[in-house]
């Protein structure tokens, strides 16, 4: 006797404890198995690209904060690098080092939340994410010392950074850098060989190497699939070619590899921070650039390795105080393209684990 079954459509989101922001997935399920999934987003669209056409180049910097709000320093850095490339502005040495320090601290903070949220989606009941939030609080305290803000920093300026670090910053940073590897080891001890975590994430949601390149994935998603492509090494910006660090890559492209790549990247970031703190020179932190900077007419595409992937800005200028076109190449939007292939055939519980392992932020998906 054949029982007639019928697949049903379930809406996961937009308001859901696990969807990292307002994101909706229309899943067609046959029992527990996912047959099809259709991502629907746009709930956080604020029209940043249109707003930027009405603002001067310096006024856009706070707008960029709100793209990937968990990694504001990286957004700022990518934008000011693009404007400096377009206008041909040089940056003093001390500002370059400060930028690298802030970018790497931001990478650690963003990965802590990314890994913690992934583990939360796997069901670990908030315990790992609370430990990681404890470390992130130390990073946010450092940022607050520097620019007074905890989330949307608005710290970088065209031609440098906005102001110099206070004198209590360097000792606090040294203390953090000394203690952080111990914390990462603590997480590894608790989680790396955890049988249940391995069962939930090893072999789950595989993204092959060819697929990853074809969908323009970037960041940890691309590197976990075996492609050794990190903008800091293949197209070094700022002064990254002066630091020694490695690019962790995975091999299988499953959720576990993406998790491991993020944890290893945190270790490498601490390494870069140590080197930057030793070599920090004295000097000015901002070159003389007018507030109403007018880059010559032309266009430029500048990109950096943000924590979530390759963040790029495409600017077209017509020699006026506001850009003619401002476009954001958002890594989370492109990483999301593969969601359907990765998820089909798995179960409902895996949908959220896979989605959490991609680590997106809706601010930059929707802009």
């Amino acid at each position, binding site marked *: 006797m054949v029982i007639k079954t019928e697949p049903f459509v379930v809406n996961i989101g937009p308001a859901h404890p696990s969807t990292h922001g307002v994101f909706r997935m229309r899943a067609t399920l046959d029992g527990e198995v996912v047959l099809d999934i259709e991502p629907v*987003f*746009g709930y956080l*669209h604020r*029209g940043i*690209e*249109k707003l930027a056409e009405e603002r001067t180049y310096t006024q856009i910097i706070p707008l960029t904060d709100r793209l990937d709000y968990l990694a504001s320093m990286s957004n700022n850095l990518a934008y000011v690098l693009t404007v400096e490339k377009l206008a041909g502005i040089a940056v003093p040495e001390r500002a370059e080092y400060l930028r690298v320090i802030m970018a790497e601290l931001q990478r650690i903070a963003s990965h802590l939340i990314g890994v913690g949220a992934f583990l939360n989606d796997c069901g670990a009941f908030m315990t790992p994410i609370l430990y990681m939030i404890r470390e992130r609080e130390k990073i946010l305290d450092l940022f607050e010392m520097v620019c007074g803000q905890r989330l949307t920093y608005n710290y970088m300026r065209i031609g440098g950074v906005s102001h110099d670090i206070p004198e209590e910053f360097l000792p606090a940073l040294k203390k953090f850098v000394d203690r952080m590897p111990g914390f990462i080891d603590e997480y590894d001890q608790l989680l790396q060989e955890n049988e249940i975590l391995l069962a939930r994430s090893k072999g789950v949601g595989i993204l092959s190497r060819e*697929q990853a*390149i*074809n*969908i*323009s*994935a970037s960041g940890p998603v691309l590197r976990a699939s075996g*492609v050794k*492509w990190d903008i800091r090494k*293949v*197209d*070094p910006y700022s002064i990254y070619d002066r630091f020694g660090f490695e690019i962790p890559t995975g091999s299988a492209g499953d959720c576990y590899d993406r998790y491991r790549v993020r944890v290893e990247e945190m270790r490498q970031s601490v390494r870069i921070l140590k080197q930057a703190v030793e070599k920090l020179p004295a000097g000015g932190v901002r070159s003389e650039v007018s507030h109403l900077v007018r880059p010559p007419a032309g*266009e430029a*595409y500048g*990109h950096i390795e943000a924590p979530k992937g*390759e963040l*790029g800005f*495409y600017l*077209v200028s017509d020699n006026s105080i506001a850009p*003619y*076109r401002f*476009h954001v*190449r958002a890594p989370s*939007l*492109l990483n*999301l*393209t*593969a969601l359907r292939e990765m998820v089909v055939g798995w179960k409902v519980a895996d949908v959220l684990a896979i989605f959490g392992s991609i680590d997106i932020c809706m601010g930059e998906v*929707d*802009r």
Partner: protein
Amino acid sequence: MTVALSGGEIAARLEERFPGSVVESGQDSLLVKSESLRAVAGFLKTAPGLEFDYLTAITGVDYYDYFEVVYQLTSIRHNHSLVVKARCYGRENPALPSVVGLWKGADFQEREIYDLMGIRFEGHPNLKRVVLWDGFTGHPLRKDYL
């Protein structure tokens, strides 16, 4: 360092393969005709020595007379990059061929350009609005919207 290939070198190779497809080529970009866009893109993706297998970004720009769509291509194997542009004239129904068949990363980006600028991409499997809701009228990122 990622070498940004100049449009001039590639233009020569393209002209012999697809005569008439290149409109102009400059130091930093390459402008092709919109009809030959898909053929040129396919050639750029597979030609030995070029092999642009990674589509970094697609952007649409509204210059009042025409719309220009800019493709930033990168090759992971050779670590070089190229900028390819295509224009479509007319503000009523601008259209371009879609490159989703070549690079799947173009999927959401082309939908977004359709949503915000109104450029239709022929051959896209699911050309619906993505960041705005389905009943929205108008294309906000055009220069004459507001």
